[in-house]
């Protein structure tokens, strides 16, 4: 029973909080209180995994940012979880000088280089606090797990490794080296946490190849270093008992840009695209009306909602198309209402029965019912909170969909991706009501990438229309150049098979008297088609021969010779890690999840998706715009 990457990361974090001793399961242990100090990378890593309540359960009384003003709380051990950068090391030295805490457990997110360790040591000696530094650890947790099968590398510092930084025209070699090193370091920590060594496949001639070479080298070095290796037999035993090694597929974003710009229709992807889902958290502005003597003033409140693995409804519905989700929310609401009514009737019955004192036997049933009702009350309240939250999120999504006509965009893009004609494209672009300028630009870019080839005159015509709609057409020039560079004329054919059924379904929902008025919003059923990334992963895992993957490189760090051209023919892989350099989004993730589910008939196939950072379409569009302007 393999535990997922996310669970392993949580386990490692808990062990760290327990002063790096293994966590024992008994709840009767003495509480040991401590203070947690993190930097922003540490914060990004911890916040999707452990909430404040869980931290308190582990004994963390205060959690503070490294660079904030912290008061001296002597007599308390402090656990630091930071990246080994110069600023952080200096700040730690300052803390040691000011004697802020009693003992220091320093955990560095990635390996601390020798030089900085010396700086730390000299600072500790200088202020006579060497015995206070109890332990120093390299945690190798340099990645953010968002779901059981999804991880990214950066959230708050994503500009340094975004698509823009990798592909811009004036990128220097040193910058590139730095970016590659960051990515390799994070991927290395992923595999250290997992405890397995993968087999690496990557295409030739782009960033993915560079990353693959370096990762291979790093893994090889670590394996040969018998003293400090992380991949000894012990760690494998502690981990899963799979006898097969996983496959790591490194892909570059240039393989498939259309997916990043695509409009989407599944719940999780929609909330990322429309509501900016960040680190499993959504912020919604709720307009509440405040009645004052001067008139009705709508005030906007920002509310943040957590959408994570503990939410059962979210886990079931996050990959489903939006109308299914709306129905499901309605069902949950009905179920909750029936339970609430039960409790209420019980209350009424109790009220009546309380006056009749002789009926002791009736009292017995009611007492038992009351006990169960009272004990189930917290569950009911929790359920109500979840339903409220999902109702709010879904309503916010629906508002955006209606105002921007996202369903029309989705349908058109699906048609374009299956090589239909683009007759109504010009209409949509010139329609002032349909969507923001970003939406129109995205639609046109997808048409440019996937649709039939347009000649220059047509393109100029569209550009004029787009400019009329306030779009920034710098991105178009970049895409045109990209298209000519990458010989991706074969790419559109890979989108084939996608068609949509437009079913006007509002009859069904309206008859239910639902609060989601979906009139005018078409019910679009997503046909199962595979995006380019999924196709490649499928071919590599199943050892099929496909034209595109013929010249993919093959790395196996366990082989003695670094011979990279001959892939050993093995049985199909059961586990794959797909990593996209330059940005990823939930559409690809959902596609991979669906593919894995479809393939896991008798033997479970596991596909884990990773990307250097999660960008939604508007952010990616901005990056393309900048690239186009700098051309």
């Amino acid at each position: 029973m393999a535990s997922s990457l996310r669970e392993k990361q949580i386990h490692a974090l808990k062990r760290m909080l327990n002063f790096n001793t293994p966590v024992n399961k008994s709840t009767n242990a003495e509480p040991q209180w401590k203070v947690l100090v993190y930097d922003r990378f540490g914060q990004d890593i911890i916040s999707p995994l452990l909430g404040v309540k869980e931290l308190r359960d582990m004994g963390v009384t205060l959690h503070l940012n490294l660079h904030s003003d912290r008061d001296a709380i002597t007599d308390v051990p402090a656990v630091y979880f930071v990246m080994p950068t110069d600023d952080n090391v200096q700040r730690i030295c300052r803390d040691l000088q000011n004697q802020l805490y009693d003992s220091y457990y320093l955990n560095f997110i990635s390996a601390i280089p020798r030089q900085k360790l010396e700086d730390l040591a000299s600072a500790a000696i200088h202020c006579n606090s060497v015995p206070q530094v109890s332990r120093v650890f390299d945690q190798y947790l340099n990645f953010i797990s968002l779901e059981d099968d999804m991880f990214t590398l950066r959230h708050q510092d994503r500009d340094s490794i975004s698509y823009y930084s990798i592909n811009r025209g004036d990128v220097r070699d040193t910058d590139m080296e730095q970016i590659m090193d960051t990515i390799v370091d994070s991927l290395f920590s992923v595999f250290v946490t997992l405890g397995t060594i993968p087999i690496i496949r990557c295409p030739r001639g782009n960033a993915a190849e560079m990353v693959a070479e370096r990762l291979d080298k790093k893994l090889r070095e670590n394996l040969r270093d018998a003293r400090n290796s992380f991949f000894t037999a012990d760690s494998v035993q502690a981990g899963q008992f799979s006898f097969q090694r996983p496959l790591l597929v490194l892909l570059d974003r240039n393989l498939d840009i259309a997916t990043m710009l695509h409009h989407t229709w599944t719940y999780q992807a929609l909330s990322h695209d429309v509501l900016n889902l960040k680190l499993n958290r959504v912020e919604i502005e709720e307009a509440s009306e405040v009645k004052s003597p001067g008139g009705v003033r709508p005030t906007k409140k920002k509310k943040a909602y957590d959408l994570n693995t503990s939410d059962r409804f979210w886990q079931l519905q996050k990959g489903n198309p939006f109308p299914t989700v709306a129905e499901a929310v309605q069902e949950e609401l009905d179920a909750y209402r029936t339970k609430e009514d039960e409790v209420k009737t019980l209350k009424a019955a109790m009220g009546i029965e309380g006056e009749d004192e002789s009926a002791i036997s009736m009292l017995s049933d009611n007492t038992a019912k009351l006990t169960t009702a009272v004990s189930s009350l917290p569950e009911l309240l929790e359920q109500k909170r979840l339903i409220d939250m999902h109702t709010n999120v879904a309503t916010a999504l629906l508002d955006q969909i209606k105002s921007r006509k996202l369903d029309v965009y989705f349908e058109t893009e699906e048609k374009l991706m299956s090589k239909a004609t683009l007759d109504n494209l010009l209409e949509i672009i010139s329609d002032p009501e349909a969507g923001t300028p970003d939406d129109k630009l995205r639609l046109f870019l997808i048409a440019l990438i996937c649709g039939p080839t347009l000649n220059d005159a047509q393109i100029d015509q569209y550009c004029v229309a787009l400019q009329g709609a306030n779009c920034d057409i710098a991105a178009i020039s970049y895409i045109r150049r990209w298209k000519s560079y990458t010989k991706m004329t074969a790419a559109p054919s890979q989108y084939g098979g996608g068609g949509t059924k437009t079913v006007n379904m509002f009859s069904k929902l309206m008859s239910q008297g639902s609060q989601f008025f979906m009139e005018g919003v078409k019910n679009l059923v997503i046909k199962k088609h595979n995006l380019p990334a999924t196709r490649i992963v499928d071919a590599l895992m199943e050892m099929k021969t496909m034209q595109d993957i013929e010249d993919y490189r093959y790395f196996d760090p366990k082989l003695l010779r670094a011979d990279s051209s001959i892939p050993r023919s093995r049985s199909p892989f059961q586990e794959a890690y797909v990593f996209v350099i330059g940005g990823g989004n939930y559409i690809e993730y959902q596609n991979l999840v669906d593919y894995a589910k479809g393939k896991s008939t008798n033997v479970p196939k596991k596909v884990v998706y990773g990307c250097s950072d999660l960008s939604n379409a508007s952010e990616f569009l901005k990056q393309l715009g900048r690239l186009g302007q700098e051309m």
Partner: protein
Amino acid sequence: MADVTNIFKAVVKGIKSRKKQLPGDGKNEERHSIFPTPKHRGDFEVNAKEVVSAITKLKDLLLKHRKDYVNAGSHLIGEASSMTDAEREKIDTEAQNIIKKCQDNLQTVKKNAEAEKVHPQVKEHREYVLALINSYLKVVCKIYSEQRAVRVKRVVDKKRISRIEPERRLSRQYSRNSDTDNISSNAQLPSTSSGNTASPKVIQRVPSQTPNYDDSDDDISPEEAQMFEQENKAMYDEMNSLSEEISKIQGKVVEIASLQEIFTEKVLQQEEDIVKIADTAVFTTENIKEGNEEIREAMKKNAGFRVWILFFILVLTFSLLFLDWYSG
């Protein structure tokens, strides 16, 4: 996860040796003694740690005697239990004392902490430390109450089982008595119905003895005896039903007690909020009163202002008329 503590210590040693080679100021390094300097621990920390150790001791005590206490052996009387009831009582009272003491200590620590003037972060930290100790205490109390509940349940079961036997034997005996018209059994029955844990052996002896009593009592006639018997039967039934009802009520009361506990908890939780709301409401009324006062003042001043404006306008008008009359 790589433990680089040793590398760190090696680096420290390396740097120290490097520093010794240079003629640096020797003052800093003389202070390094073999034993680490004793750290001054604040009162809060010391007291908090004491409370925690007391709770741990209690937990160990409970767990150590747990096996004997619970005596998962048997219900039957007669098998030697390794712990008499007296010892169990002693453990119970001791545990309760320790819990009470820990709670008091915790309260004093809390009061001392609040009285001290410290940074807000330290205050927050102390709050959470106290909350952690509190929950630890609750966990240990739960162990204790669980053990106790098991013991009480066992005693109740024992009583119930030992009571069923006399009832069964009594009913059997009744059928025999109604045949033999026995009076002395009346004397026996009230005593047996009131006694609960009495051994069934006493009753066993009675049927063997009943045939002897047939001829000894000649004061009471057979009709009166039968009447007495019926009366007794009625009384016995009544007593039985009463006792059944009592046991049922006992069960209900226990359930109600647990419900009440849950309710008290919830009510106490809400009390805080309600106090806050009451304070806010009081503040609100006072603010509104002051607001009303201010509004009245403003209105008055407005009125006065208006008077002055009108006066000014009238003066201007008259002066205009005057000038006009003067120049015209």
